[in-house]
C-alpha cells in the first residue's frame, strides 16, 4: 500500500486542481478572517463596526490568540465544500479519465488502491490545514505588530484540538465526496449534489429545526454539517465576536466528534464495498 500512497501523493502534487482548491481555501480564509475585519477596523470612524461590534473587538478578533477560530472557522461550510470537491475529483476522476480500469486490473488489489487513496487524501488535508494555520498565524502576527498589540498565542492544547478538529471536519467532507465519486462513477454529479447539500440543504434543515419545525431537531443533530459546526464551536471557547456561519453549539462535543468519526468510517466502508464488489466498466 505504501507504493499506492506515494503514487497518489505524487499525483495530487502534480494536479492543478488540488492547488486551485488549496489556493481558494487560503484566499477565502485570509479575506474573511483577516482582510475584511482589519480593513473594517482601519477604515471605520465610529466606535462600532457594522452597527454593534466595538472596533476594539474587531481588531481583537484578528490577533494571535484567535488563531484557532480564524483558521478553522470556515471549515464547516466553505472549506468543507472545497474538501468535498477534492474527494469527488480524486475518486470520481478515476472513472472520468478511465484510469480505474488500469488501476484495478494491473496494480495492487482494489482495497489496497482505495486505502492508499484515502490515506493520501488524509495526508493532503493535513498539509492543507497546516498551511491555513501557518498563514493565519503569519497574518495575525503581522496585524499584532502593526497595531502594537500583544502576540498571545493559543496554548499547545488548544492548537492541537483545533488542528485535529479542523482536519476531522475536512476529512469527513472529503470522504463524503469520495464515496459519492465512487458510487456515482463521475465527478460532476457528486460535486453538484454535495455542494447543494453543504450550502443548501443543511442550512435549510437547520433553520427549519430552529424555528418553525422543531420536530426536525433529531434529524438536524445527525447532519454532517451541523456536527462539523458543533465540533468546531466546541474547540474555540474564547471568542471575541460572533462565530462564523456554520459554527454552532447544536450538538455536544463528544457526540459531534463521534458522529464525524462515524461518517468517516461509514464512507470509507461504503466506498470499499462498492469498489470491491462492482464490475469495472
Amino acid at each position, binding site marked *: 500500500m505504501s*507504493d499506492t500512497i*506515494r503514487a497518489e501523493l505524487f*499525483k495530487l502534487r502534480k494536479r492543478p486542481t488540488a492547488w486551485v482548491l488549496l489556493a481558494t481555501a487560503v484566499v477565502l480564509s485570509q479575506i474573511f478572517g483577516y482582510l475584511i475585519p482589519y480593513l473594517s477596523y482601519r477604515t471605520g470612524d465610529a466606535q462600532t463596526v457594522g452597527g454593534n461590534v466595538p472596533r476594539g473587538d474587531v481588531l481583537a478578533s484578528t490577533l494571535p490568540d484567535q488563531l484557532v477560530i480564524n483558521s478553522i472557522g470556515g471549515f464547516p461550510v466553505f472549506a468543507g465544500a472545497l474538501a468535498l470537491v477534492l474527494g469527488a475529483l480524486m475518486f470520481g476522476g478515476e472513472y472520468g479519465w*478511465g484510469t480505474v*480500469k*488500469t488501476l484495478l*486490473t494491473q*496494480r495492487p488489489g482494489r482495497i489496497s488502491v482505495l486505502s492508499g487513496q484515502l490515506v493520501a487524501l488524509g495526508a493532503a488535508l493535513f498539509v492543507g490545514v497546516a498551511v491555513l494555520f501557518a498563514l493565519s498565524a503569519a497574518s495575525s502576527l503581522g496585524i499584532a505588530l502593526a497595531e502594537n498589540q500583544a502576540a498571545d498565542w493559543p496554548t499547545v492544547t488548544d492548537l492541537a484540538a483545533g488542528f485535529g478538529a479542523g482536519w476531522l471536519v475536512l476529512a469527513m467532507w472529503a470522504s463524503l465526496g469520495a464515496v459519492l465519486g465512487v458510487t456515482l462513477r463521475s465527478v460532476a454529479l457528486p460535486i453538484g449534489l454535495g455542494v447543494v447539500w453543504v450550502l443548501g440543504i443543511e442550512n435549510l434543515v437547520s433553520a427549519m429545526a430552529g424555528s418553525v419545525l422543531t420536530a426536525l431537531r433529531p434529524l438536524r443533530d445527525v447532519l454532517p454539517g451541523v456536527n462539523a459546526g458543533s465540533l468546531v464551536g466546541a474547540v474555540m471557547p474564547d471568542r471575541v465576536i460572533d462565530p462564523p456561519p456554520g459554527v454552532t453549539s447544536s450538538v455536544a462535543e463528544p457526540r459531534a466528534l463521534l458522529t464525524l468519526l462515524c461518517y468517516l468510517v461509514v464512507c470509507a466502508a461504503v466506498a470499499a464495498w462498492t469498489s470491491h464488489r462492482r*464490475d*469495472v466498466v
Partner: protein
Amino acid sequence: MVNNSPGPAAVAAQDLRVHRGGRAVLDGLSFEVPRGLVMGLLGPSGCGKTTLMRAIVGVQVVSGGRVEVLGLPAGSAPLRSRVGYVTQAPSVYGDLTVTENLRYFAAILGAADADVRRVVDQVGLSSQADSVAGALSGGERARVSLAGALLGTPELLVLDEPTVGLDPVLRRDLWQLFGRLASQGVTLLISSHVMDEAERCQRLLLMRDGRALADDTPQALLERTQTHDVESAFLALVDERARTTTEEVPS
C-alpha cells in the same frame, strides 16, 4: 491447439459464457493463446472482443466456464504485475503530462523511473514527454496508455484495439514493437476489427456473435477457406457457419 513453450498457455478458456442484459455476449468460447506470440482477436464490432478481454484480465463477471491466465484463474492477485491491459478508450489523466502519468503508474507498480523513459521511447512519445496528456491527439493518448501497460515486465499484454486512429507509419512502428516484444517471450493478445492487421499476427481467433469462428494461423485459415486475404476468409467462414446452421435446422 498449440503451445509454443513449456508450462501452461498464456490464456486458456474453456466453455466461457458471459451474459449481459439477458443476451449471451460470449457463448461457450474455448481457445488457447500459446506463449510468446502475437495473437490477433478479430471480429466485427459487438462480437464480444472487449468482453473476452475483460474476462481475461478479471474485471468481467462470467456466467459459466473458466479462464486461466498464465496457469492461474483470471483476475488472481499474483497476475496483476504479470498482465498489462490497455483499454479501448485511453486510460490517462488528462491534467498530467505524459511523464507524470507514467511516473504515477510506475510508482504504483514499483517500477524504476528509468523504466518510464524506456516505455516513452518505445511508443514514440519522447518529443511529447512533457506535454499535458489532455492536449494530445487521441492516438497519442492511446500510446500513453500502451506505455503504461509496458511498465515493469508484463508476461501477457492484452491490448484492445491499440492501433485505432493511428497513422500508417505509427501503426507499422507499433506492430514492429509488438513483434519485438513477442520475440522476447511476451505474449500479446491484440483485438482489432481491421482485418488487414491480421496478417501481422502469428495466430488468429476470429469471432462473431460471441462465438469462435476459427482459431488458427493466418496461412492455415487462407488455405482452409481458399481465399487470399483474412477478410475474405472471415466472410467465407461466416457463410460456412450459416450453411451449417441451415442444414442442422430442417425446413
